[in-house]
């Protein structure tokens, strides 16, 4: 464990540095840093499953959505619930939770949902898994859009206390990274990576691929739910803000960074977020080294989309090569194989 501690320290250092950097800038710019830290949590959640198992999932944003809905419904002031969510189910109308409690419950809901969804789905791999998890995203989106008994339907989650600041988002990102690190160094993480590298050999030594994937899926659903809780406390979430676009950008972050390492997940999330935020600012006009830059709206998506396609084509294992960072001049080891997202 100790030998690998730098695999924990470096990503943590990056996240703490990003959070500290965020304290130095103006309040309006700070939102971008907070948003980045929430994205780090989501991407780390994706890494726990996709990175360790090598199975693609388009469905994780549905756990983010469930976490957001849970934390949102529990923290909208009881007096305002009838106005925002007139069709809310009776048992939810009077329930209320404190901020931290709502995040914990969001995480638990995400984990339970992932566990339930995983029981049937973890038997699938490859394309079937990709399509089936996409189906989960579609079903969640469809139900949350029209099921007004559990949330605001197509309206935005307004009146949720905006408590997610740099501090909470930073702490949550740290929690996610520590959980991901402990998981991937644990017996379970190692077994799951063994199934990723050679399914047949792992089965031959008695590993249950199904069980290992289910564990990872549950853990990552837990982290995704937590991130969803943070997200709803950051900005008024609407059902389309936890759908395809978020799926795309977080997958892009994971792929650009390098699917198979925690370091890659964190680097990807920070790098793509930085680029995305800067472009979003530039769309409103900014200046860089004395040049005035005013990009048309929509440039951010085009640049991030091109970047993701380019990385996949030119360097499919991502910026970090899918390896963990080793300090002390030790040559990079880890899985040398290409990222099998």
């Amino acid at each position, binding site marked *: 464990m100790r030998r690998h501690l730098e695999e924990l320290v470096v990503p943590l250092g990056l996240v703490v540095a990003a959070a500290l950097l965020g304290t130095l800038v103006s309040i309006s710019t700070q939102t971008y840093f907070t948003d980045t830290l929430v994205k780090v949590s989501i991407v780390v959640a994706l890494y726990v499953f996709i990175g360790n198992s090598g199975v*693609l999932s388009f469905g994780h944003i549905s756990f983010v959505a469930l976490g957001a809905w849970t934390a949102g419904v529990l923290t909208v002031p009881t007096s305002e619930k009838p106005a925002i969510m007139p069709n809310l189910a009776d048992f939810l109308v009077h329930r209320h939770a404190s901020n931290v409690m709502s995040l914990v419950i969001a995480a638990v809901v995400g984990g339970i949902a992932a566990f339930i969804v995983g029981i*049937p*789905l973890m038997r699938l791999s490859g394309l079937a898994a*990709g399509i089936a998890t*996409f189906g989960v995203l579609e079903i969640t989106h469809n139900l949350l859009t029209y099921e007004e008994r559990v949330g605001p339907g197509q309206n935005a989650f307004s009146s949720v206390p905006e408590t997610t600041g740099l501090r909470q988002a930073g702490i949550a990102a740290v929690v996610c990274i520590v959980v991901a690190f402990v998981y991937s160094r644990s017996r379970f993480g190692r077994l799951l990576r063994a199934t990723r590298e050679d399914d047949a050999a792992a089965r031959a030594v008695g590993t249950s691929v199904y069980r290992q994937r289910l564990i990872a899926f549950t853990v990552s659903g837990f982290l995704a739910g937590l991130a969803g809780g943070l997200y709803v406390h950051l900005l008024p979430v609407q059902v389309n803000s936890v759908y395809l676009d978020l799926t795309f950008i977080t*997958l892009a972050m994971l*792929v650009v960074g390098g699917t198979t390492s925690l370091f890659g997940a964190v680097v990807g999330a920070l790098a793509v977020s930085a680029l995305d935020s800067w472009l979003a600012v530039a769309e409103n006009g900014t200046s860089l080294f004395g040049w005035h830059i005013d990009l048309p709206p*929509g440039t951010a998506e085009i640049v991030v989309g091109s970047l993701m*396609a380019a990385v*996949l084509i030119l360097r499919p294992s991502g910026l970090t090569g899918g390896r963990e960072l080793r300090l002390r001049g030790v040559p990079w080891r880890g899985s040398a194989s290409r990222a099998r997202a």
Partner: protein
Amino acid sequence: MTLAILNIDWSTLADGLALGATYALMAVGIGLVFGVLRLVNFAYGQLVMAGAFALALASEWGWPVWAGIVLCFAVVLALSIAMEHLVFRPLRGHSPAVMLVATFAVAFLLQSIALLWFGALGKIAFSLAFLNRPWTISSVDIRKIAIVAIVVAIVCLALLQLLLTRTEIGLHMRAASMDFATSRMLGVRANRVISFAVLISGALAAIVAVMLTVQNSQVTPDFALRDTIVVLAGVVVGGLNRPVPATLGGFAIGFATGVLGGALPTNQSQYIPAIVFAAVILVLLVRPRGLFDFSRTVERV
């Protein structure tokens, strides 16, 4: 005259058949490329979207209908070729999942370019709107487009079947989709076969663009995105490896969505995506190799 079951009348049935036929064409387009490249093209819907925008621009410029359709084909084919050279070719040989993510990125890229270019509201393609008017056959109103779609789909599928079974390039394509490496050793020219498959798939996308713009003349950047997701699910459910099961899968999911959408009241039909995808997941679990794949081979370790 109505069918007693589930309140489905003949025009709903015709619309369902038409949607199924359109989706079947998309399924063939996706399946052909998968056959030779083992690549699921998530960006297929954006080819359709580009074609639809071409039609919208043509009708805005006051071009005649045939010129608009020519422009639509030109745009879609050019885009397919560009996609093949810039994205598919470098990705050849990667795992299917990596390629799926890559085409996912391309899809979003094209969609955001369209958003930048045409705005979120998009444009209106009205030159073929007359096909929405009904034909009355013994007191049943059936929209012309439904009949046109079904006929076009049948003709296309028949031509494709002839191409695949009666021509040399068709033979090569079938050989390549069975075993790419061996077929290359036996003299099948890889690039030629792949380019040909991509071109046909592009032509089908253009046809689909024409038919979908009739049904929905408001062309937005996310035009055909939902259709692609549904068709992809249908294709995987049918069985990606063979053209006929893939086509049947696409048709089945289109027909089911169309008929359910017409037959159910709104407060139920809004949940159709959830029902359809739940069914898709169920099929994937019960028959992971596809609903219509009856071959017995098991993947060996």
